[in-house]
């Protein structure tokens, strides 16, 4: 397999233009958007002959005209072509005639076809076994916009686009050091999708980079539609409900993660970049945490954690508390819940299940439907479910509140939303079965599962387990920036200092102030 591929790649151009064209057309067929523009000098048969191949659908024809066709035709007409053979002529053309910004030489027919289909223009010359490749692609991409999912109040608002070049540009603008390495691969038998593995040479663990590349090169699939395909084909725990690869649409997030020593993967056609390794607690970290001062966001971290736990365990705890251990609920609350439950036809477990189901249905409908309709669905749903069902005595109001709370909690950590739907169900059943014992055992199974996960060698819930007290400064709280002076130990082991130790801002000297006063 490998050998034949090598053979295919070595399949290269010959000296005869006609034969070359025939060979290319043999591979591509004659699609309607393949254009072959022949350029001849008016010297008759002896003069050089050239053929420009490009896909009208992919090439910016205006630029092609200005940068390539115009100068070429002019040159052919004015006969200021020099060169003893085709080879030299081609070089001259590339060096001094064609004004397109990129000019590459290529001999392999396979590569030529590949580039042609990716939108490059190919110039073939008679008596020459080399082709010139000019990249003048038509840019039809979305503008750089703010990602809809990861919105911030303070901080950069730009997001990646579907166009790989734009994404790379955004990233390059964040990190201009030459250490930023981009390694291109193309994946997908038919889609030939361009994929970039990005890392910072000085920081990222070599083994990690190699592992990422190894897993990527293993992929053999017909097409890559989104970075999600790649994620699912290289993740560590395919059977786990937990994702072990991070994703983001924000260049600043990718840049920050690269600076921590992680590796990112950018995929052409997808605005979502993958970052790895991923740890669980990334779910409660947002870029904004680092852009604002630390006190507020330390508090927010704790709030997120509380909601995260509620989102995971609240339905279970609710059922366990009400049905198994009402003694732990204060009397007034017990009376309220009890009064609300009076006359509800379903057992509590079923009630919570049903209502959770309805909530998820509403959410899904709201997401899928066109935005105006989606809103209508949400409003109708909220009104009917929230008010009518309670008034009719079908659901108790406390269950409505619990479900709504879980809904809010779920949206606080969007990355874990789908997971928690499943774990919540599990804990709910266990709670109905064994009360708090069930919830605890369920949590323990979940903990164990999480502890057994690794993402590219990093334990999934580090630094909480294995416990690394020093690294907790960026988990439960967000320590001041000058305290976050080391890279996380669980990601990179060498080159850990990210700033010098004395970065705590100091008040100015007295002299400074005196000067000011004078």
């Amino acid at each position, binding site marked *: 397999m490998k050998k034949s591929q090598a053979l295919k790649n070595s399949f290269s151009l010959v000296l005869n233009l006609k034969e070359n064209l025939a060979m290319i057309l043999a591979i591509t067929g004659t699609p309607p958007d393949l254009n072959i523009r022949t350029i001849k000098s008016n010297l008759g048969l002896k003069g050089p002959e050239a053929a420009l191949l490009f896909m009208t659908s992919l090439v910016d024809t205006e630029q092609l005209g200005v940068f390539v066709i115009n100068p070429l035709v002019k040159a052919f007409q004015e006969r200021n072509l020099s060169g003893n053979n085709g080879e030299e002529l081609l070089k001259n053309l590339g060096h001094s005639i064609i004004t397109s910004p990129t000019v590459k030489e290529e001999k392999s027919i396979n590569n030529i076809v590949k580039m042609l289909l990716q939108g490059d223009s190919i110039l073939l010359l008679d008596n020459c076994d080399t082709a010139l490749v000019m990249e003048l692609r038509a840019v039809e991409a979305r503008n750089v916009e703010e990602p809809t999912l990861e919105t911030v109040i303070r901080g950069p608002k730009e997001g990646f686009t579907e166009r790989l070049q734009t994404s790379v540009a955004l990233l390059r603008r964040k990190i201009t050091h030459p250490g930023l390495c981009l390694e291109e691969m193309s994946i997908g038998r038919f889609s030939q999708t361009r994929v970039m593995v990005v890392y910072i040479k000085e920081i990222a663990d070599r083994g990690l980079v190699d592992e990422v590349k190894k897993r990527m090169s293993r992929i053999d699939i017909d097409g890559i539609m989104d970075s999600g395909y790649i994620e699912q084909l290289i993740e560590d*725990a395919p059977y786990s409900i937990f994702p072990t690869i991070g994703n983001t649409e924000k260049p600043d997030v990718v840049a920050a993660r690269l600076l921590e020593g992680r590796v990112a993967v950018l995929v052409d056609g997808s605005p979502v970049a993958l970052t790895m390794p991923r740890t669980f607690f990334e779910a409660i970290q947002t870029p904004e945490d680092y852009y604002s001062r630390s006190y507020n966001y330390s508090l927010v971290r704790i709030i997120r954690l509380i909601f995260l736990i509620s989102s995971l365990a609240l339905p279970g705890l609710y059922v366990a508390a009400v*049905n*198994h251990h*009402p003694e732990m609920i204060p009397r007034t609350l017990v009376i309220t819940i009890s009064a609300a*439950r009076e006359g509800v036809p379903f057992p509590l477990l079923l009630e919570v299940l049903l209502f959770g189901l309805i909530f998820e249905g509403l959410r899904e409908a709201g997401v899928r439907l066109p935005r105006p309709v989606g809103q209508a669905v949400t409003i109708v749903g909220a009104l009917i479910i929230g008010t009518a069902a309670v008034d009719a005595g079908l659901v108790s109001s406390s269950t409505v509140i619990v479900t709504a709370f879980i809904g809010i909690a779920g949206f606080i950590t969007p990355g874990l939303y789908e997971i928690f739907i499943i774990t919540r169900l599990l804990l709910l*059943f266990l709670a109905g079965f064994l009360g708090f014992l069930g919830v605890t055992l369920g949590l323990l*199974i979940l903990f164990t599962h999480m502890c057994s996960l690794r993402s590219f060698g990093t334990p999934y819930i580090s630094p909480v387990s294995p416990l690394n007290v020093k690294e907790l400064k960026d988990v439960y709280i967000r320590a001041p920036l000058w305290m976050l002076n080391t890279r996380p130990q669980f990601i990179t082991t060498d080159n850990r200092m990210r700033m010098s130790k004395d970065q705590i801002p100091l008040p100015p000297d007295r002299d400074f102030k005196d000067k000011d006063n004078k």
Partner: protein
Amino acid sequence: MTINLLLPLLTLLLLVCPIAGCWSNYELEDRALVSGVGIDLGQNGHLLVTTQIIIPMFTHTRGGATGGAVKEPAVEVFSAEARTVAEAVNKISKLCGRELFFPHLDILIVGEELARAGVEPVVDWVNRDRELRLQTWFAVVNGTAAEALKVKKVGLESITIAYVSRILEASMRENTRALPVRFLDYFASLTENVDPVVSRIEISETGGDKMVFASGGSVFRDFHLVGWLTETETRGYLWITDQFRRGIISVPLPGNGYISVELRGNKVKRKVEFRGGNPVMVVDIAVKTNLDQVDDPLLTLENPEDLDALEVPVEEKIAMEVQASVEKARVLEADIFGFGQLIRRQYPKQWADIKDDWDLIFPTVPVETEVKVTMRRTEQISSPARPGSY
């Protein structure tokens, strides 16, 4: 790896499916929340158990047509007679059709007759049943507990017996009339060989309506009620046992006047001295007070000495209360203050000699009280207002 994850989850879930909703899983509406329990002596040595159960439903609506329904819990009282408390509780469950649920129990009241006969069955039940909390108030009523629980409406509470527990709760913070005792305190006394004192509830009748309120304390020897403490004696008891936190007392002045002072910041030291081989209790009480009210037209407060002069009657009043409680304890021959325990801790050797005869020795042990009152503030004004003082 896969099987590792799936095996226990599937097994657990398989276990769950057919049996969810069984065992300890009770829907809340199948439980009857008990707010108060009363236990009396019934006929033929049986126990009459009365429970006050909360009905968590709309009893009435306030607000009119626009809605604004207000949920008000009300109570229902059920009684049953059986040989043991547990059996009676079971009978009540059958009566009201729901499983009785005790953790939200506020108070357990024992009727006087049963208390005098001995509360052992109650104590064992409370200790053994997992649903009962040691934080439950423990009180004896000067009548039957059933009667106390059946009182229709008292105070501002819709759960009637919550009124009593609120008074006791308040007495924890401010000691004026009632003695707040939880089961925990009762057991602590019992296990430490101190004769326990528990709360006391009084039923009174005014104009055909029955009223309950908490007042004074009830003195036990082990499991048997032997007598009551009046409100004055209760305060004396609280002084000696260093439980007096805050409170207002009114003190007669020489002449015709009265003052009310607020007591707070107390320091009580208790120690034993052996004089000639006999134990003597010494109780040092230091109190800080604020002058809350003066009801004496002749009183003038102009210099510090005037204030100091007011300290003396307060000191006398406190000493009087302490002596009253000591007298009562002697009469009842109940070492409610834990003097025996005090001797055991400070003089283990001497205690070994006298512990067998302690019941006889206790009434003869002299109690010396030293009270030091410091008047700190006169609040907003100094002398009471009187006409023409300017």
